[in-house]
């Protein structure tokens, strides 16, 4: 994003007002997160007798180690592992099958190409939420309830990544493929030696987006992981609330909430440039 020169009116008081406005916005954005963090560092009695403190307490280590090792239904460390596995599975799986099919669609002529193209692109339209019941039945019939395959496979069936790679491959000059042919490279050799390395940034950007997408899934894991040891962290939080009138173990729940955001936040903030580029490009 380009730097630009400011106009006269941005000087002085106006500038401070701008900062003030932004700081209020940032405070609004961060207040819920801050509060969750504070709650994850204090003891249960401090929370149930409102108002709770607004500054961190001294129970950080106790709450987090309790959450990670014991949790409520299952240790949060286990759920973190499940989430990580699912998010990586979705991101890598989707990127892999999309790269291959985009390569086939762009660089080959074969019977049924148009049909495949449209079959794949129809799936752009439908989020998993719309077809949950029958998809659930498919997974149940395959015996994939409470399994990683069951968590991952249905969420790979989407065309956004294929679409993005197709767009990118179309911009790769034809002559590169020709040069590779003259150099004696077959299609797969061209794919691995030339196309894949050239797609590095696109792959990385997409990885960030898909990782977040996979990590943040809620409804699907909720349906197919009835076994607490297969819960993902995002859906597992809700399971930590007691039914009925029992009081929730807020410090542990909030510690879990914080733990649930740490990996995606690290990925998003750490790979900010790639992520923004990927986001703006894939949605355009």
């Amino acid at each position, binding site marked *: 994003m380009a730097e630009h020169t400011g106009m006269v009116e941005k000087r002085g008081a106006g500038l401070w007002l701008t900062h003030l406005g932004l700081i209020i916005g940032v405070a609004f954005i961060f207040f819920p997160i801050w509060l969750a963090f504070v709650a994850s560092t204090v003891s249960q009695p401090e929370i149930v007798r409102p108002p709770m403190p607004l500054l961190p307490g001294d129970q950080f280590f106790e709450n987090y180690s309790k959450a990670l090792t014991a949790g409520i239904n299952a240790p949060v460390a286990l759920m973190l592992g499940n989430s990580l596995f699912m998010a990586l599975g979705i991101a890598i799986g989707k990127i892999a099958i999309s790269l291959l099919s985009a390569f086939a669609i762009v660089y080959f002529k074969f019977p049924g190409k148009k049909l495949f193209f449209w079959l794949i692109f129809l799936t752009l339209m439908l989020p998993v939420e719309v077809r949950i019941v029958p998809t659930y039945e498919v997974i149940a019939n395959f015996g994939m309830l409470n399994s990683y395959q069951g968590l991952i496979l249905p969420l790979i069936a989407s065309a956004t990544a294929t679409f993005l790679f197709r767009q990118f491959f179309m911009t790769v000059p034809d002559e590169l493929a*020709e040069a590779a*042919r*003259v150099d*004696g*490279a077959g299609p797969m050799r061209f794919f691995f030696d030339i196309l894949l390395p050239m797609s590095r940034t696109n792959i990385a950007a997409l990885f960030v987006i898909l990782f977040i997408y996979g990590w943040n899934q809620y409804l699907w894991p909720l349906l197919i992981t009835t076994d607490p040891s297969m819960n993902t962290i995002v859906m597992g939080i809700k399971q930590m609330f007691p039914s009925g009138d029992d009081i929730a173990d807020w410090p542990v729940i909030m510690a879990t909430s914080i733990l649930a955001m740490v990996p995606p936040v690290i990925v998003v903030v750490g790979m900010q440039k790639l992520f923004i580029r990927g986001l703006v490009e894939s949605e355009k």
Partner: protein
Amino acid sequence: MATLTLNNVKKSFGKTDVIHGVSIDVEDGEFIVIVGPSGCGKSTLLRMVAGLETITDGEVQIGGRRVNEEEPMARDIAMVFQNYALYPHMSVFDNMAYGLKIAKVDKAEIADRVNQAAKLLQLEPYLTRKPRELSGGQRQRVAMGRAIVRKPAVFLFDEPLSNLDAKLRVQMRLEIRALQRELGVTALYVTHDQVEAMTMADRMIVMNGGVADQIGKPLEVYANPATEFVAGFIGSPPMNFLTCGLIGETGDDRIGIRPEHMRLADAGEGRLNAQAAFCEVLGAETLVHLRCVDGTQVTVRQDAAKAIPDEGTNVGLSWAGANEMRFDSNGQRI
């Protein structure tokens, strides 16, 4: 190093014929330039030789062997592309070595050949750089290097200089020609620039609308064009064309005279009257542009020492009959 033979090679896309049958026997070590305006099929012809386009009909032989069905790699050719087509993520060394690696040439041999090519092309300091860190001329050299290391039987060039600025183009033109002579490799070179064709070719193929209008040595083609198209396309400024009627003859024939063969004379004298429109003084020579009574534009190229007519003055034009070329209504030389 090998001979290259095209035997009535044709290409159609669906029902559209783009190459109507081209034949030529290229001798070992010969430098052939295919020249013509855009859309004349010259690139398609080259790509058929390369194996990047299928051959609809006819035969291509390299070293006496039919290669119609061969993959590009198996044809023993190397190609230099218009936009160079360097692999952007590979270093200069890897770009040149890629084909050899695929051919499983052993490492020491690869390094040897690449270094030799780099030396020849003065690319030694840049071997570890990526293509984006090079200038246009250097990229051009890498593309050449990639072709050289393969030690192919035939070099194919697809407008390799059109992305360079004018000065570099002149320099690279000489370099490519010198290199080809030194290596003695048969070359097929496509360009739309008739100056490149004239200066580089042993023989040239002038293409027009999918047909090879003329195949011959540059000076031969220049002095003796087979068609009106060739006459007009080769030579700068282009040949002057007059209708028979303008010089008091009957018929549909058109008459062509090169600008350097026309001389200015006093008004009323010579074979044709015209009005001087403007002059381009180039230093060693002067181009006088004139307009005939029927509106035809004519250019006379004359020595700078000769007198220049004022704009608007009427002058006569004369030329020797031997320098006159006649073309029938189909554009064929009579």
